[in-house]
């Protein structure tokens, strides 16, 4: 017997006692007992055994007791579903109570009981309550629909509650409207495709009216909902903005932030020349500053959002630097955020003040804060050239304090300053070298080693310094090891005579004694370079380094735009899209800022305007597969500034090799490394010739020289999935040559170079006929249009679907994979016209089971036009007949791989629907040929 038995008996005793009290006749005693039960429930004791006794107390006219019992029910109903049924009758009865507060209480509580059997009984009372005469009941019922939807979405749809909920948006009571909006927004979020929140100018107007009248919370719901709307033009955007701006004076910070969100989003649509645009910018600053006098937790939320706003529209707060100065008593989380914003706002105009502040902060107590302050000084130096000298001297002062973490942080940033302003501040190297021994953090050690290697010719004892690090080589972190390897190679190239032994030592350490593949590979590359061609090695290792960018830690523009749509929410606090921290489908929808649309230019709705491709053709990006390779390339590129520059050049050099082998094995395509230049003429020759001969045919026949139909460019690779590289593309066929027209846009912050492209094996052997030629590096926000010639002599592998093409694109950042569907008509060759007799014979020859029938709907053309249009895409009419008033077109086409397709197209004058019969020896192409027909005829 253990003590535990004793404990359980006491517990049992306690429950027994409560049971007796719950069944007492005296009301007061009952109530006290229920209170005790609730108290035990709160602390986490299991009181579910009392379920029947508590439920028995439900039938009471004492409202306080009723509420307590309901509270108990909400907690335990799920664990005792059968017993919970006992409560249903009381609920249903309460929903009919003359007192609106009791009706609302019943419907509110019922929605919180997640038991299927109860849910069924909830429908009728809920329907009544949604139409109740009392607004308090209606506003409660509106939320209840969202609760029910969470339990059983299908039921809500079947019962038509969604329509009732939509009607409530036009309710006369503002609070009912607000709750209905909240409920609808939540339901819509779990059905991204549904058009549940059908926002149109009328419903927007209703919401804007309710905005003036409802509670502060209701205003937040409405503003958050408004932010999801895309106005049809700039005029509508402006008129909504005008009605939202008064909210900026609300005492509730959440109302203010939600209003800011709406304004920031709709501003995208306004032209910068507009007077109103300027007015709006001015109106945004004061409320944002006011948020900083709120309670610290809200200040934190506000600062995280201001951080985004400053990156998106720096002009709003550029004169408000002072309000971000750190106060001694600010909580640490507020201090760190303020510091971040200070650096973003630093400019030539205010740099003196900022530096004075930062110096002050560097003497504070909190280690993280001090580090960040030191780093900020370095960032100021890089951002504002005029201040660089003062920053360096400030940093030197800080190094003199000998506070360990301050020194290390200072060295890391001084390395960046060296890179930004070469040959200017190297005089301080001596001071830095004095602190070599106190460095114990990898980042600082790596930075110091970089400095020694880079300026080896100016440091007399560079070899000794580096050698001292070499002793504990295997205990260092990878970052330091890589840096040390590179630094010693640099040293060797600069002072070859004295350091041969050292370099051999480090190369053998890196290649033979290390099991880190990155280190080993880099070691081997250096080794081979040095042994085969020292001159080349010098060119590579000591190459001039690209400049580092001024702004660091900027959020990628595509992510920033998405986060702007989430101002005020958790996503804006974490600086992550909701998908990164929310489970399930709720976070899956990506939001984006509306495109700028001028009212005079376009009447189209923005949803349809940019969508170049029909939804079926949406390309899908091949996931994960390439990540391994990407990581390999990326590993030591590091952040733009602090990344060791030598690493960049060496890795790029290594990339060719890595990539060639890697891609081959991954995709199994033709050899990537061998430039196919030699084969180009031969390949192009054949189609060119036939194209030429066809040219005559065309001119004599139809007289159009336009080539086959070209679909508008569609997004193949969104920037979000390719580290900022956006690819739009389409396929064309012109006089016998197929090409892939690409539009590459750099939406990242760094320059993109070294583009290459490769296809996976595909059904028709499509392959690039020439390397991807991007002549100049693609700088941020630049777009380039390229036409890539294709041939059809690549390796063949049947794909699913047949016209699927998997593409790998590489640049200096990474390798990206995507797949796209090409229209089959680019493969229709120019000599696809069959002789009549052969046509007849072939038609008969192909078995009937290979015949496929399709209907082409809604095509307004007549037989003549159809024929000529198809001919320009290399579908040739062999014969034409008129049978019983119907035009019969007999057509033939040939694919690049020699497959013939025969067609019979039946056109009835006046009927826009055509019948298409296709016969082919390879029937799997029929479906795609039919698609080609549709594409050609309908565009």
């Amino acid at each position, binding site marked *: 017997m253990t003590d535990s038995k004793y404990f359980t008996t006491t517990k049992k005793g306690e429950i027994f006692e409560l049971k007796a009290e719950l069944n007492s006749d005296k009301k007061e005693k009952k109530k006290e007992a229920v209170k005790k039960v*609730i*108290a035990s429930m*709160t602390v*986490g004791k299991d009181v579910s055994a009392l379920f029947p006794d508590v439920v028995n107390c439900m039938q009471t*006219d*004492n*409202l*306080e007791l009723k*509420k307590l019992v309901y509270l108990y029910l909400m*907690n335990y109903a799920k664990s005792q579903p059968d017993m919970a049924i006992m409560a249903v009758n009381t609920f249903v009865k309460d929903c009919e109570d003359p*007192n*609106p*507060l009791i009706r*609302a209480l019943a419907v*509110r509580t019922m929605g919180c009981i*997640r038991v299927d059997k109860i849910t069924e009984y909830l429908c009728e009372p809920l329907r009544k309550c949604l139409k109740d005469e009392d*607004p*308090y009941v209606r506003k409660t019922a509106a939320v209840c629909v*969202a609760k029910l939807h*969470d339990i059983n979405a299908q039921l809500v749809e079947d019962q038509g509650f969604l329509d009732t909920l939509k009607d409530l948006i036009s309710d006369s009571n*503002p*609070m*009912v409207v607000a*709750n209905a909006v*909240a409920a609808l927004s939540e339901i819509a979020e779990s059905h991204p495709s549904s058009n549940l929140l059908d926002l149109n100018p009328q419903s927007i107007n209703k919401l804007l009216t309710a905005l003036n009248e409802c*509670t502060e*919370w209701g205003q937040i*719901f409405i503003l958050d909902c408004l932010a999801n709307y895309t106005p049809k033009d700039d005029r509508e955007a402006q008129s909504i903005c005008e009605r939202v701006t*008064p909210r900026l004076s*609300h*005492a509730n*910070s*959440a109302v203010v*932030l939600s209003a800011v969100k709406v304004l920031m989003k709709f501003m995208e649509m306004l032209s910068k020349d507009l007077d109103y645009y300027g007015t709006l910018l001015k109106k945004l600053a*004061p*409320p944002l500053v*006011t948020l900083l*006098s709120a309670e*610290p*937790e*809200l200040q*934190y*939320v506000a600062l995280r959002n201001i951080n985004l706003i400053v990156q998106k529209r720096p002009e709003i707060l550029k004169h408000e630097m*002072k*309000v971000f*100065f750190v106060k*001694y*008593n600010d909580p640490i989380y507020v201090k760190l955020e303020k510091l971040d914003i200070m650096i973003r706002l630093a400019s030539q105009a205010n740099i003196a*003040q900022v530096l004075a502040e930062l110096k002050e902060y560097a*003497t504070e*107590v909190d280690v993280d804060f001090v580090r960040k302050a030191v780093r900020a000084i370095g960032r100021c130096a890089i951002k504002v050239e005029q201040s660089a000298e003062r920053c360096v001297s400030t940093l030197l002062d800080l190094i003199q*304090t*000998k506070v360990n973490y301050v020194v290390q942080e200072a060295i890391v940033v001084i390395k960046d300053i060296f890179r930004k302003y070469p040959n200017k501040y190297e005089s301080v190297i001596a001071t830095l070298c004095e602190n070599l021994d106190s460095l114990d953090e990898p980042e600082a050690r790596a930075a110091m080693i970089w400095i020694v290697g880079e300026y080896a010719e100016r440091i007399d004892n560079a070899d000794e310094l580096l050698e001292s690090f070499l002793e504990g080589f295997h205990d260092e972190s990878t970052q330091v090891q890589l840096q040390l390897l590179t630094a010693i190679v640099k040293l060797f190239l600069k002072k070859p005579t004295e350091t041969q032994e050292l370099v051999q030592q480090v190369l053998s350490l890196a290649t033979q004694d290390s099991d880190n593949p990155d280190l080993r590979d880099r070691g081997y590359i250096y080794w081979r370079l040095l042994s085969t061609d020292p001159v080349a090695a010098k060119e590579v290792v000591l190459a001039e380094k690209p400049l580092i960018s001024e702004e660091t830690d900027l959020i990628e523009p595509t992510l920033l735009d998405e986060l702007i749509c989430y101002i005020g*929410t*958790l996503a804006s*606090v*974490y600086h992550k899209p*909701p998908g990164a921290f929310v*489970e399930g489908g*709720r976070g899956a929808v990506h939001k984006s800022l509306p495109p700028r649309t001028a009212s005079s230019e376009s009447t189209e709705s923005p949803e349809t305007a940019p969508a170049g491709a029909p939804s079926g053709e949406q390309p899908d990006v091949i996931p994960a597969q390439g990540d391994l390779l990407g990581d390999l390339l990326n590993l030591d590129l590091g952040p733009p500034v602090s990344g060791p520059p030598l690493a960049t050049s060496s890795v790029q050099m290594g990339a060719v090799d890595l990539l060639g082998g890697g891609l081959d094995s991954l995709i199994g395509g033709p050899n990537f490394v061998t430039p196919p230049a030699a084969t180009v003429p031969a390949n192009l020759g054949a189609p060119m010739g036939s194209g030429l001969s066809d040219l005559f045919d065309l001119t004599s026949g139809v007289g159009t020289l336009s080539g086959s139909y070209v679909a508008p460019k569609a997004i193949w690779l969104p920037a979000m999935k390719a580290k900022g590289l956006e690819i739009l593309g389409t396929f064309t066929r012109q006089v016998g040559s197929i090409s892939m027209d690409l539009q590459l846009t750099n939406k990242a912050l760094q320059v993109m170079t070294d583009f290459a492209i490769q296809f996976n094996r595909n059904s028709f052997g499509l392959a690039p006929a020439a390397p991807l030629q991007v002549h100049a590096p693609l700088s941020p926000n630049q777009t380039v249009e390229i036409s890539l010639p294709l041939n059809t002599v690549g390796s063949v592998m049947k794909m699913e679907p047949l016209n699927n093409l998997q593409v790998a694109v590489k640049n200096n950042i990474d390798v990206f994979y995507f797949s796209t569907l090409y229209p089959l008509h680019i493969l229709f060759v120019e000599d696809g016209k069959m002789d009549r007799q052969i046509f007849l014979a072939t038609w008969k020859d192909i078995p009937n089971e290979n015949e496929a029938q399709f209907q082409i709907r809604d095509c307004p053309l007549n037989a003549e036009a159809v024929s000529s249009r198809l001919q320009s895409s290399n579908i040739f009419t062999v014969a034409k007949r008129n049978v019983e008033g119907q035009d019969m077109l007999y057509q033939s086409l040939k694919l690049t791989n020699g497959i013939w397709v025969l067609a019979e197209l039946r056109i009835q004058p006046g009927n826009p629907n055509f019948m298409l019969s296709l016969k082919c020896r390879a029937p799997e192409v029929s479906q795609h040929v039919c698609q080609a027909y549709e594409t050609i005829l309908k565009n």
Partner: protein
Amino acid sequence: MIGGLFIYNHKGEVLISRVYRDDIGRNAVDAFRVNVIHARQQVRSPVTNIARTSFFHVKRSNIWLAAVTKQNVNAAMVFEFLYKMCDVMAAYFGKISEENIKNNFVLIYELLDEILDFGYPQNSETGALKTFITQQGIKSQALHWSCGLQHQTKEEQSQITSQVTGQIGWRREGIKYRRNELFLDVLESVNLLMSPQGQVLSAHVSGRVVMKSYLSGMPECKFGMNDKIVIEKQGKGTADETSKSGKQSIAIDDCTFHQCVRLSKFDSERSISFIPPDGEFELMRYRTTKDIILPFRVIPLVREVGRTKLEVKVVIKSNFKPSLLAQKIEVRIPTPLNTSGVQVICMKGKAKYKASENAIVWKIKRMAGMKESQISAEIELLPTNDKKKWARPPISMNFEVPFAPSGLKVRYLKVFEPKLNYSDHDVIKWVRYIGRSGIYETRC
């Protein structure tokens, strides 16, 4: 939306736990306790993400309030709600303490049921809540419940619901006072950060206009102050007035209003009109940065004499009309951690070295305008081998002055109640200005 709300004591024991959403389980209660309340390090953020669950917390004395969610909620709204929750609880039972929360847990559950539905905040105005959540808060040991709902008439009930959901959710109809009276307090806190050389690094006033109204019926009020924009607009007609009042007007950087104020009217006409809640409420908050009257100037002088001695001299100068009196003046001079002894001499008031606070605290009860006072101290230091220099925190100051450092003046507050027979003239109005120190620091 908010998935659950927990209240803990300083030990991390749960006092209140209310779950609104199915995705929040009991383990969330423990996750917060373990990762935040019992965390080894100081909390670095008021928002914590543990296993894809986000926790928002605020602390009141030693009570933790935490809101939990698994969705991408409006973060600003959650914090505003937590503050509001504290206000509501305070209005019902006073200070938020463990004892009060335990004594009132039934009331708190009832409130939580009413002001949050499925995690969506509902009407949280105390005035409205008190009409139907009538349990009296228990401030002492005595237990007395008064529960009234079932005795209400039908009219009363529908009046309650229309008030809770209506446009004027903050005031009920049918309020009657024998004497119509209102009090306006202009409360300002003046913030300053000054360099040792006397250069103003940043200064701003954040002010509040707090109104206590005891007015019958549904009075329509209009509030006017010497806002530069309004005065300039009015002054266009009469040039004389512009020159007369133009000097006294102030530039308000930004202001925010209680939800009773019609914001669209303020936006278009810059007039402040509203129907006030009954009793005390904060009508507006504002912020100014231009032409601030800094009531005190602090001139510090710190000299390090060798490694074991510091000499500190601080002069304060009052800078306002000689006829006015500042009160509750306190100057706080930080001392290094290795202080072993302090000798202080001051001309006025009392000064003491408080070892536990690492500071010399100098208190003066009253001081008139345009005066000056001085303190000097010798600080003995223990020798240490700590390499890090003393951070020299700024000298801070507290005070209270009977004027508004921003220069704000109330011009009028007009009351109209067309349905009842009292006019603007019958209302007794009181106005008071108090300027306090916010963060008033001078670096040394």
